[in-house]
């Protein structure tokens, strides 16, 4: 046991999910997280915000980080704490995320004129979640850690 805790008490209540890098599987992460969030007591709007943020994070991991390689996995970890839910999404980092792109300020006017309508995912995640942090996963891939607080 690496954990100092007795095995009768989990160090943390963590659900781990490993998904193939194929579009559509983000739905599995969304449904799993919303099932957990509802049971923790999150309201409908917050659950929807969480679903959207996870959809963006997992889609980024599939499309960019793992470049659609179905053999590469996206690791989603859901940690349920008494007052918050922590969601971590990591890819295997075939393509590294440019750190300058982790704090975007996209303009809606540009989307009307430019062919590339992308660039809204990370902005959306920051708008929807209470804490957001982009790091490198232990595996070397890109990792985003998102926290949503439970307001009672």
């Amino acid at each position: 046991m690496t954990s100092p805790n007795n095995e009768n008490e989990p160090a943390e209540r963590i659900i781990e999910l490993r998904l193939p890098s194929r579009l559509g599987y983000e739905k599995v992460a969304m449904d799993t997280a919303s099932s957990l969030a509802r049971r923790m007591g999150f309201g409908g709007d917050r659950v929807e915000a969480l679903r959207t943020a996870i959809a963006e994070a997992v889609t980024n991991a599939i499309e960019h980080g793992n470049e659609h390689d179905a053999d590469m996995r996206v690791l989603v970890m859901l940690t349920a704490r008494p007052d918050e839910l922590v969601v971590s999404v990591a890819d295997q980092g075939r393509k590294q995320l440019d750190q300058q792109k982790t704090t975007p300020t996209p303009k809606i006017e540009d989307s009307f004129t430019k062919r590339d309508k992308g660039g809204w995912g990370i902005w959306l995640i920051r708008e929807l979640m209470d804490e957001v942090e982009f790091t490198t996963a232990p595996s070397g891939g890109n990792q985003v850690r998102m926290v949503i607080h439970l307001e009672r």
Partner: protein
Amino acid sequence: MELSFPSELGYEKIAREAVAAFAHRLGCDRERVEDLKTALSEACINAIEHGNRDTPGLRVDVSCIGAGDRLEVEVHDRGLKRYESSGTVASIDLKLRGLAPRRGMGLMMIAQLADEAGFTESADGGNHFRLVVYFRKL
């Protein structure tokens, strides 16, 4: 897809949502997904309560492999209590009338819902339960 969670009752409900979404993505029809959810919940409860004896620090591992028109799911626990077949299985009627032990009802239900189900050989000392569901054509 792989999924793991702590051995606490309630997590089977989250596992069944994950596996249902996976099956749906593969094209499994709605009714069959409902059968799968019920069967998987029972298998996870067995792993939590019996295989891992409700020890939260021990984990239940679920793996799902979709191939063609079928989905194969395996549920692994740490085997604190190993499954032992009791030989002849009493009918559900006898169980309900209290004339036979009630244990084993979950497994009977899984057998009714899944196309294939049963414990498989495991080298690591844990219980390995496997169930297969074929996607019914609409």
